[in-house]
C-alpha cells in the first residue's frame, strides 16, 4: 500500500512524463508536418 506522499510522487512523475511527451510531440509533429507540406 502506497503512502499518500508516494501516491503524490507517482502522480507528479506521471504528469511530467505526459507533459514532456506532449512537448516532444509538438516539436517532432510540426517538423514532420512541414516536411510533408513543403
Amino acid at each position, binding site marked *: 500500500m502506497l503512502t499518500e506522499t508516494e501516491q*503524490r510522487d507517482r*502522480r*507528479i512523475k506521471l*504528469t*511530467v512524463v505526459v*507533459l*514532456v511527451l*506532449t*512537448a*516532444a510531440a*509538438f*516539436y*517532432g509533429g*510540426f*517538423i514532420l508536418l*512541414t*516536411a510533408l*507540406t*513543403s
Partner: protein
Amino acid sequence: MTEHTAAAHDDHHDEPPTGFAERWLFTTNHKDIGTLYLIFSLTMFFMGGLMALVIRAELFQPGLQFVDPQFFNSMTTMHALLMVFGAVMPAFVGLANWLIPMMIGAPDMALPRMNNWSFWILPFAFSMLIMTLLLPGGAPAGGWTLYPPLVLQTGDAFPFMVFAIHLMGASSIMGSINVIVTIMNMRAPGMTLMKMPLFVWTWLITAYLLIAVMPVLAGAVTMLLTDKYFGTSFFNAAGGGDPVLFQHVFWFFGHPEVYIMILPAFGVVSQIIPTFSRKPLFGYSSMVYATASIAFLSFIVWAHHMFTTGMPIAGQLFFMLSTMLIAIPTAVKIFNWLSTMWKGELTFETPMLFSIAFVLLFTIGGFSGLMLAIAPADYQYHDTYFVVAHFHYVLVPGAVFSIMAATYYWLPKWTGKMYNEKLGKLHFWLSLVGVNVLFFPQHFLGLAGMPRRIPDYPTQFADFNMISSVGAFLFGFSQLLFVAVIWSSVKGKQQATDQVWDGAEGLEWTLPSPAPYHSFNEPPVIK
C-alpha cells in the same frame, strides 16, 4: 475564504544558506529562484529599453543620425527578442515562482531542482544572444519573426541565435511543466480548482499554452538551421520549399505567445482590483472560462498576421472572424473588472493605479487589434507603425504595467517593508504620460503610411516621430524611479503588516511579512 492552521508558519526553522553560491547558484527555493527571475527580467528590461532608445534617437529626426541601417535593424530585432523572451516572460515566471506555492498552500514548487536549472539556462542563452553584436556581420537583423529568406542572410550570429532560442524554449518548457505539476499536485487540502486565485488559474492555462507552442518555435528554428547549413529545403523555394510555410509555423507559435504574455497579466489585475475595491472579484467563474476561451481561440487565429501573403477568401474570412471572436471573452474580463470596482470602496495606491491604467490602455490595444483583424483594412495597416502602436499598447501598458503593479502589490510581502508610496505614484504618473506620448502618435504615423523597421523616413512623418521619441526618453528614464522604489522597500524602515493591504485576501497574506523561507510546511486548511 481561507484560513490556515497555527502551525503553518510558526515552524519555519529552515533558514537560507549563508554562502553566496549556495544561496543563489545552487538554490532550489521557490522564493530565491523567483527573485533571480525578477532581477534577470529587470536587467533585460533595461538592456532592451536601451536598444529601444537607440531606435527612438535615430527616428527623432528624418535622415540617418547615429547608427547605420544594418545596426538599426539589429536593434529592432534584439530589442524584441530581449523584451519578449528576456523581460516579460521571465518576469511572469518569477512572479509564478514567488506566488503560486504561497497561493495554493504548498511548501515549494513540485520540482525544485529543475526550477534551478530552468532559471540558470537563461543568463547563458541571453549572454550568447547579446554577444552576437560583436560577431562579424553583427547581431541578427531580420526581425524577431525570423522570416526566411531574409533571416538566412544573418552572418555568424545565426547559429548562436538559433541555439539561444532553443535554450529559452527549454527553460520555458521546464518552467511550465513545473507550474502545471505544482498546481495539479501540491494544492492544500480543500483548495479545489475553482477556489484557486485567478493568478494561479491564468498561469495554469498559460503553462499549457507554453508547452504546446514553444516546441513549435524550436521546430521552426531547427528547420531554418538545417536549411542554412545542412542543405534541406523546408523554406527554400529553389529546393521546392515554401517560405510562406515558415510564417504559418512561426505564427502558430507567435499568436499564442502574445497570450502567454498577457494571460498572467490578467491574473495579476484580477488579484489587485478586488483588494483596492474591497469587494470580491465580480464573476470569478466567468473569468476562468474567459481565460480558457482566449487560450483556445489563440490557436486558431494565427494567419491574421499574414493576410497580405495571399490567401483564399475563405481563409481570410475564417481568420478574420475567429480573431474578432476573441473580443468576447476579453470584453467579459473588462466588464468584470469594472463591475468589481463599481460601488467599491476604492483607494488608489500605486498597484491599483497601474491596474486601472492597464484596464484602460490595454483596451485601446485590444480595439486597435480588432481594427487590424479586418482583412480588407489590414491591407492598408499591414507592416506600418499602426501595428507597432497596437502591440506596444498591449505589451507595455498591458503586460509591463501589470508586472509593475504586481511588484508594488507583493513587494512588502517579499521584503517585509513598505515601499515609498510617493515615489511609486510619481513613477506611475511619469510612466503613464511617457507611454502615451511614446505610442499614441504611432497610430497616426501608421495610418499615414509610415512602414515599420525603417531607420529613415520622409519629412511628412517628422512631427509625430519627434513627439514619440520625446515620450520614449521620458518613459525610459522614469523607469529608474522603479529601481529606486524597489530599493526603498528592500532598505525600508516601515515594517509591513502580514496582510499589507486591508482589502487583501488569499493564503499569501496569512504568512508573515517577509514571507518565511519555506511557505507552508504544514498544509493550511481551506474552508
